[in-house]
């Protein structure tokens, strides 16, 4: 994929097959189209292929085993399908197939176990929500069993979550996206600016940290975690260790928030929509946020509302603007911080280059499916479209998400994380505290009446 010194030339059109965002779009939209063709032809093959044991409500191991023995062929075919579509695409991305395949098979087996745990009739009683269980199991395995590094080839957190988000678009009414846009954008602007400026000023004025490090951790905390840190670090020409510091801070706090926000929401008896918006406002990464929103949604009995609130706030409200943040910081670095050194001004095209393209897939899937299903009456929608078309897509989306949640845990090796230093930790933590409190106030009190209506 790259030359001897590890450099890939300017991407241009190559981005269409060298970036996982585009592959997430191809896979997500491809699955939607194939599902639609099968549905229109009266075929139930996708429905059978989208099988998972999560909804079994089994009470004895015998029931669970009966399910697997009756459906073993579909599970085998499903595994084969995932292996082909993820295996081929990751190969083109440059990931070794010999490493991806064994790693993914292990991930698939663990995912079935996670679904099976979630399908246990008493699972809700013990808060055994698959996202949280998957995360904990992954963390334990990664930090107790010395998993070889090459296995990360199959634990592609971002690739799975992006594919899941495109599939989520297919079940997300476009009208909701349009109507929610202004509220999500307003709330996202308030929280992003407040968090970023807080971390930046505390880091530079209180702790005397370098402004590049401050901007990297500031935008990381305010927009979309490690991805934002990476974008800003490269825009302001940050030192390698600045990015490394931000990786540690974001990963640690994101993991804390995956557990804190759902259980705090439960203690406060928040509506799933409010809690989803809070997660979307105060969690740092899409993958971590989906785990938290999905977990609380299941605890509260309305996963859809929590996921809708999260998606509107995080994916649409915050993620889309990373290119603009990146461009603005590149301008500041070039025009203010290094007037003498700066050889070239950043191009406004930076906004497009950095744009998280999978969001386009989310919008396309949402628009496409809303248009297709608009012609059905409410009765036909509930009796035909929902069980025959939408639920199989929801199940495949759940697979993508569970791959992601497990992968978060399986790739988190605490001993590999760099010690961040107490000053960056202090600045980031103050930002986190303000973000969480402000996120709660905005999601529950200021815009609460709006978010709590989601999913009704």
């Amino acid at each position, binding site marked *: 994929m*790259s030359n001897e010194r590890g450099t890939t030339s300017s991407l241009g059109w190559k981005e269409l097959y*060298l970036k996982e965002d585009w592959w997430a779009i191809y896979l997500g939209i491809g699955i939607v189209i194939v599902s639609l063709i099968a549905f229109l032809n009266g075929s139930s093959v996708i429905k059978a292929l989208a099988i998972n044991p999560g909804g079994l409500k089994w009470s004895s191991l015998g029931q669970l085993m009966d399910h697997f023995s009756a459906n073993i062929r579909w599970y085998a075919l499903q595994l084969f399908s995932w292996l082909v579509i993820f295996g081929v695409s990751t190969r083109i991305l440059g990931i070794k197939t010999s490493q991806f395949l064994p790693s993914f098979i292990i991930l698939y087996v663990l995912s079935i176990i996670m679904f099976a745990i979630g399908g246990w009739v008493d699972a809700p009683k013990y808060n055994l929500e698959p996202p949280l269980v998957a995360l904990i199991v992954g963390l334990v395995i990664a930090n107790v069993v010395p998993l070889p590094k090459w296995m990360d080839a199959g*634990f592609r*957190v971002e690739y799975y979550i992006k594919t899941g988000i495109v599939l989520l678009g297919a079940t997300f009414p476009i009208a909701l996206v349009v109507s929610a846009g202004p509220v999500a954008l307003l709330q996202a602007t308030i929280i992003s600016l407040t968090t970023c400026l807080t971390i930046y000023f505390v880091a530079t004025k209180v702790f005397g940290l370098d402004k590049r490090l401050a901007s990297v951790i500031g935008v990381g905390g305010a927009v979309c*975690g*490690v991805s934002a840190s*990476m974008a800003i*670090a490269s825009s302001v020409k940050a030192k390698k260790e600045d990015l490394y510091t931000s990786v*540690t801070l974001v990963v640690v706090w994101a993991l804390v928030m995956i557990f804190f926000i759902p259980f705090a929401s439960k203690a406060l008896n928040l509506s799933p929509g409010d809690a989803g918006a809070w997660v979307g406002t105060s969690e740092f990464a899409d993958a971590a946020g989906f785990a938290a929103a999905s977990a609380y949604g299941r605890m509260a009995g309305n996963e859809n509302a929590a996921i809708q609130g999260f998606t509107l706030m995080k994916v649409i409200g915050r993620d889309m603007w990373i290119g603009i943040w990146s461009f603005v910081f590149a301008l500041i670095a070039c025009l203010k911080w290094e007037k003498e050194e700066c050889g070239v001004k950043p191009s406004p095209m930076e906004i497009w280059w950095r744009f998280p393209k999978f969001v386009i897939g989310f919008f396309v899937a949402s628009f496409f499916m809303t248009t297709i299903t608009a012609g059905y009456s409410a009765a036909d929608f509930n009796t035909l479209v929902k069980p025959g078309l939408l639920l199989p897509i929801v199940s495949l989306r759940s697979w993508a998400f569970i791959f992601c949640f497990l992968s978060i845990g399986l790739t988190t090796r605490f001993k590999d*994380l760099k010690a961040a230093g107490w000053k960056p930790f202090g600045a980031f933590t103050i930002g986190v505290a303000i973000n969480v409190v402000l996120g709660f106030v905005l999601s529950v009190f200021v815009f609460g009446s709006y978010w709590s209506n989601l999913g009704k």
Partner: protein
Amino acid sequence: MYGRCISCRFFANDPALIEATFPGLNVLSSAYGSVRSDAGICSRHEFFLSSWQRCRDFESGDNDGKDALLPVEKKLSGYSIGLGAVLLGILVWISYTFFPTGH
């Protein structure tokens, strides 16, 4: 005007290399995503930076492979030509078999 980092011998932006350089980066992000664009690592200054940037310490990478086709591009080209040839053959066969009067 100095050369761009993308052409500098100190610059590397292979996604696998970036993920190996920053353990933990792939936990909640990815070097294979659009957000990174083609940013990479400068081994001369230990920076993480965009490929369009320039600096006075620029040293040409001698375009080693910069403009050549990537292995995956060669494969894609090969597969496309092969698939095209096979489909052309099928088309000719269909034409002669099912529409013989046209010849």
